[in-house]
């Protein structure tokens, strides 16, 4: 069966994405094992973000296939893939409170269970009393921690992180990179972590892939 490498969670084969300006990603392949954190490193314009967006189903593929746990998900719509994408600038919903943001992906859960899960996640990211605050009251580091909590809340099959720390200053970046690694390992969530920073990649990932 294609894509069923032993122990692999995600297998992407020969992904090609075109933009109007030209080829954004050409015949790119990679795999992520169960529970593994893979960093994708490369300069800006090398197609790192496009790769994540293609895997999330946000960019149409010219060619290539995407498998998860042996199942072909190439034609599965974004919202049914169970891959959560954490954006560089968080993309928190400005009209919702911190708690409502974290609980956004839990709309199928019964409310008491959802509230408990939100509280659990806010405790994990170290913002236990922040639930009722508006998004506008958060600092950059807090916003990214809320975004991480929101991404982890629905127990994604795969977490896609697009330069999640690049907008933060150096001290905070190191601390949060450690924190993300610990959290991902505790939940055994496989992850693709895009960054342009070697130190950050080495700190977070089990394995590093360089994009040309």
């Amino acid at each position: 069966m294609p894509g069923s490498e032993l122990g692999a969670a995600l297998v992407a084969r020969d992904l090609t994405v075109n933009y109007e300006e030209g080829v954004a990603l050409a015949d790119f392949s990679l795999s992520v094992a169960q529970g593994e954190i893979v960093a994708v490193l490369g300069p800006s314009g090398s197609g790192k973000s496009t790769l994540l967006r293609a895997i999330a189903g946000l960019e149409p593929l010219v060619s290539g296939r995407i498998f998860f746990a042996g199942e072909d998900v190439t034609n599965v719509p974004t919202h049914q893939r169970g891959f959560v994408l954490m954006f560089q600038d968080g993309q928190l919903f400005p009209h919702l409170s911190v708690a409502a943001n974290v609980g956004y992906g839990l709309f199928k859960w019964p409310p008491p269970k959802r509230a408990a899960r939100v509280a659990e996640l806010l405790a994990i990211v170290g913002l236990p009393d922040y639930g009722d605050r508006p998004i506008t009251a958060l600092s950059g580091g807090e916003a990214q921690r809320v975004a991480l909590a929101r991404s982890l809340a629905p127990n994604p099959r795969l977490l896609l992180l697009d330069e999640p720390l690049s907008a933060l200053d150096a001290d905070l970046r190191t601390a949060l990179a450690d924190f993300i690694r610990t959290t991902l390992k505790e939940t055994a969530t496989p992850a693709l972590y895009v960054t342009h920073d070697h130190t950050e990649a080495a700190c977070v990932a089990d394995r590093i892939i360089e994009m040309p």
Partner: protein
Amino acid sequence: MDGRRGWVVGIVAAIPVAFLLIFFLWPVATLIGRGFFDDAGALSASGVLSVLGSPRTWRIVGQTLGQATVGTLVSVLLGVPGAYVLYCQRFRGQRVLRALVSVPFVLPSVVVGVAFSSLLSESGWLGGLGLSESFTAVVLALVFFNYSLVVRTVGVLWARLDVRTTQAARTLGASGLRAFWTVTLPALKPAIASAAALTFLFCASAFGVVLVLGGVSYGTVETEIYYQTTQLLDLPAAAALSVLQLVIICACLLVTNRMRARNERALRLQTARPGRNPGSVVLSAITGVTIALVALPLLSLVYRSLQTADGFGLGNYLLLGQVAGKATTVSVWTATGNSLWTALWAAILALGLGTLTCYVLSRRPRSPGLRFGLRLFDSAFMLPLGVSAVTVGFGFLITLNRPPFDLRTSWVLIPLAQALVALPLVVRTLLPTWRAIDPRLQQAAATLGASPWRVLYSVDLRLLRRAFGLAAGFAFATSLGEFGATSFLARADRPTLPVVIYRLISRPGVENLGMALAASVVLAVLTGLIMLTAERLGGENAWI
């Protein structure tokens, strides 16, 4: 995935398109077609040619363009200083002044006409100037209408300009004036151009205010169409004039669309960083005088409405409950009820269709062909903004009077026509906000497991709540004051408030005038209340 969503968007688009075809293009095309057939039904351009050959036609076209050009120039020259004072400076009472200048824009045109004639007629405060039924009177009223459009459009952008760019110019040795000329003005140009183009469009298609103020001598193409159809019953002439009007408006729309595209791009480039700007005595003085002039007709309207034959009092208002003899067959209060009821349905219809339209227009298709299609769709929904409301009203009468749409005797015609007039305003209010929603927010929601419908109502519609409030206000207020199309469609026994006001003011008699003034105040207050509620819900918003 794209293919399946494409079908949904196509079906959603079909509803407003069908509405536009049946209730806009068909009536308008039929009316225009009438101009090219003689009484025997044979194709003939003689009627049209005789209109195009008549010097009267070209005098009226000249007047239309002249009034619109002068009206636009004055609006811009006064509006740019106003934008600075009301949006870039800070002072006590600023919000109140902003609200005050935005009142005229939503006032029914008949009310503005009555207010200005109460001010400029011989017995009015400014009666000594002899401006009654003059070119100047029409231009002043057009400026009164559109001043706030310029102030808002330019002001909202100006407040978002980074003051540090100007400061950089100053440290490089530029004087205040030179910095404005070389740095600020170029940045504001798209907003100024866009506001000017829209103002021109509104001025060139103004109807009620010109009908009331211009008298017989200062008509526009729009009032001439009305005159030819209702007084002379000369359909070919009216049709030929409608074609002329269409040409003028399409040219305006073309320019407006260009400007708007540039404006939207420019807005994205600016950092939203309102800073404190230095105060300016000259600009504040200009704006102070302008605001006083804006307030004058309104004060005059209220003052004159309280003047009765036996002194100062509420006599005119007490008459509103009576059926006023020959002028109307119903009381003003009954007409007010009719107006509110039809405007409510018109607003619901316009808001529903506008939402569907904006949903389609806010999509971001990848293929260039679809993107071109979207631009066409966009322009099509701006057409009712410019095409003569009179043409629409008359077109309704001659097309919707037989199967499949035999609505001749139905009051439904009025909300349909009003919704058509309000639709472009709804689209222009909702669309910029909808387009400004970062697509990555929707994508974030999708990766968290939200289906496209859930994304639509949990992200898009939630973020649009404020814009919806404002759009609803515009739709309701516009429908309430709509006069051009309604004047054709309202049945004698079921007139709307603007129609009654026009009937009252066009008849002689102190009592009729007094009632017209009082009824205008009522209509103005209703409109104001609607917009106040909408602004509460909508907050600060650029109009385009």
